[in-house]
């Protein structure tokens, strides 16, 4: 077994563990936003590690796997941001032990400033 194959297998194992932990967080967390945190960040890292591990294991595939991982790296935060904003605007309540809600403060402040500007 060559040295880059060993590196690829180790990266595939690490990525599979991160994928499993991300899905476990989606089950375990109490809130939409906490679930989104677990299910997006850990899953992005896990998918990147698995895909780049396969690309390192087969050096002829490194271009296509690089394109796939770059696409996932660019689009996964965008979709999670859109989902979080949609959930907050749709009025999904936060978990009752949540300490701070900056987005609600921001929306309230902008609304107050608009009212002040309108008189």
């Amino acid at each position, binding site marked *: *077994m060559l040295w880059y194959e060993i590196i690829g*297998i180790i990266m*595939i*194992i690490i*990525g*599979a*563990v991160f*994928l*499993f932990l*991300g*899905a*476990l967080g*989606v*089950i375990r967390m109490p809130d*939409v936003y906490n*679930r*989104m945190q677990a*299910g*997006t960040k850990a*899953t*992005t890292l*896990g*998918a990147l590690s*698995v*895909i780049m591990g*396969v690309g390192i*294991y*087969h050096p*002829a*595939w490194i271009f*296509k*796997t690089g*394109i*796939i991982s770059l*696409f*996932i790296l660019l*689009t*996964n935060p*965008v*979709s*999670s941001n*859109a*989902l979080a*904003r*949609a*959930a907050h*605007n*749709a009025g*999904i309540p936060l978990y009752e032990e949540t300490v701070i809600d900056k987005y609600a403060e921001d929306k309230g402040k902008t609304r107050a400033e608009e009212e002040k500007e309108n008189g």
Partner: protein
Amino acid sequence: MSSILIIVFSLVSIATLLSTIRIISGPTIPDRAVGLDTATTITTAMIVLFAQIFHRAIYLDIALVYAILAFLGVIAIARYLEGGM
């Protein structure tokens, strides 16, 4: 190598099953959307693992197209929830 791939594929399959449980049992609609987002990302990694198992480079193209369509679907669901559609 094949035994390691069996362990890896079991872990990824259990992860897909957990996010499917969240899709079925989510109390609100954004919960189901989050489960769908997680499941599609895990499925993209799983298609790349299929390419590794069967030694077919054509499955990487399938993974890329699947990632693009999943991104468009999640964005459409988010716009619908926000009331933009």
